[in-house]
């Protein structure tokens, strides 16, 4: 009787210690689910979902506070991937054409150097300073359109990324139908 009690108590103690040790030493910072969701999001940081960036949206989705189909740049494809990851039901975003990647471009003749767009850019892709011309570093620009509304002189436009041999893609092969008669 006493032996049994001691054995059980010993096991409990050992397991408790092991669990306590694991909790301290294998502690994972942050929410791994939110990180997985963040990895699926396109990182445009456009805030069109109503959250200030991709990470906050990912956290909201992880906690169940937000729908999975709010990401505009991610589109239906992204929503499907999120549905798969979270085991939730996929809800279509409605009819949407596939958007080509765009980047912002500042008309440098019109720019007055107000720095408002610089403050709006979520990825610091605009350089310039007060009363100096600004310009967009197109390699970093995500095309989120957040710089468009604050511009007082409306000198920012989104342009399609030019096609170069480096980013040109082969088409899906199609063979024509055979003419029978």
């Amino acid at each position, binding site marked *: 009787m006493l032996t049994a009690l001691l054995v059980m108590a010993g096991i409990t103690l050992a397991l408790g210690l092991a669990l306590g040790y694991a909790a301290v030493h294998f502690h994972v910072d942050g929410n791994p689910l939110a990180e997985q969701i963040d990895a699926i999001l396109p*990182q445009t940081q456009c805030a069109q979902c109503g959250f200030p960036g991709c990470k906050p949206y990912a956290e909201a989705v992880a906690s169940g506070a937000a729908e999975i189909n709010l990401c505009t740049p991610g589109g239906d494809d992204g929503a499907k991937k999120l549905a798969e990851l979270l085991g939730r039901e996929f809800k279509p975003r409605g009819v949407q054409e596939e958007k080509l990647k765009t980047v912002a471009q500042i008309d440098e003749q019109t720019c007055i150097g107000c720095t408002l767009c610089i403050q709006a850019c979520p990825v610091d892709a605009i350089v310039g300073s007060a009363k100096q011309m600004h310009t967009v570093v197109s390699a970093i620009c995500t095309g989120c359109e957040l710089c468009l509304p604050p511009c007082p002189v409306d000198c920012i436009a989104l342009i399609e990324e030019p096609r170069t041999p480096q*980013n040109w893609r082969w*088409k899906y092969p199609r*063979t024509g139908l055979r003419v029978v008669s």
Partner: protein
Amino acid sequence: MSASRFAHLFHFHGGIKPASHKTESNGVPIRAVPLPERLVVPLIQSSRGGARTIVTVGDKVLKGQCIGEAEGKAGTAIHAPTSGTVKEIGRYPMAHPSGLESLAIVIEPDGEERWFEYERLDPEHASREDLILRIQASGIVGMGGATFPSHIKVDNAIDTLILNGAECEPWITCDDRLMRERAADVLTGATLLGRLSGAKRIVVAIEDNKPEAIAAMRAAVRAEELSDKDESEGIEVVPVPARYPQGGEKQLIKVVTGIEVAAGKLATDYGVQCFNVGTAHAVCRALVHGEAMVSRIVTVTGNVERPGNYEVLLGTRVADLLALAGVKPDTDRTLMGGPMMGFTLPSAEAPITKGSNCVIAASPTLFPHRPPEQPCIRCGSCARACPVELQPFELYWHSRAKNFDKAGEYHIFDCIECGCCAFVCPAHIPLVDYFRFAKSEMRAKNEERKAAEQARARFEFRSFRLEREKAEKAARLAAKAAETRAAMAAAQSSEPKADPS
């Protein structure tokens, strides 16, 4: 001559034996092309890097004068193909399956063909670094079609240098004619490349369907031996049995040395390196004769009156070349490169570049259109033909279903796009088209992922920066408030003293 050290050749997996169609164009000596009205020289001529233009419109340039400086370490320079005036720097269609335009320098020839005099280097005494820099400055890239910058390739210590004269692709004969007519220059270039990369032996591998080229190269080696140069010791001409794609780098290395270059490894990791015979010839012209790369040999064949090889100035329009060879009326498209690995040119306005080895006028009789694709019957012919030992039918399923992760698992990026699988497919499936599609989609996805990663890092840093600025501002304000408070307190405590009344 000692007994061949390559008496025993090896074998690569798969491969095909298509009709070679070499005799159409290999019977006539290399012909010159009359100066065209204008030459369009694209700034990007290499697979790894471009050039930065250093001339402006209206400049007079001499033949071989640098007009585009090498951009970065991997860049290669470009040169004026003839003497004349820079007419324009603008966008022109390029020799690429997309038909996209790229920045090019347009030169109007003055007809004098005056060469630009470079300071001569003595290849026997100049330092290795100087010679490699000269190769870069002369704009030399791999002339077999891949256009990899030669100065990067040669800057590796190797044991065996393979001079690639296999020319396994049907219809193309430019390397054949080059070896027959300019064997000595090719050999000099090869010995220079061998010396720069420290190679102990040089193997000239030529497919056995080019007996004249083999004889010419052997004669050149013998002449070298008679001239009593120490380096001639290690040179050997090895005929290899004709089989496509023998001229593929990894395939040729396997056949000659028996070494199988593993996926993701480079030939130099095994102490072997391949150079095309055209590249060796260009190296000889650059280092011995001081001529930058301004022309190349191009095979013009197919549905033309006068097929053959032409010495073409870079920047000559394909249309001019075809007109010279006399295109027959039933030609319906133009192929650049061979029929196996080449592509249909979207526009014959495209200029000849350093990698353009062959222009084929195609007619429905010579190159019948592919019959409609039928369902795969899983016969496995493609897997037997694949020289890389992939399973093309598996890759096909996954590429077709846009299941790119799975295609990656089946090593789609090891595919060399040689076209053997599509050639043998009884269901006429354009397998390579599917693989090219899948590869470019996968590359684009990868780029997107990288861009997203960068955007995430930048967004996170910005958030951190804003937080930090806020904290700093708050700290500053707090410090100021504390200061003011202290000053006020001090003022209050000193007030009674300050007011003696």
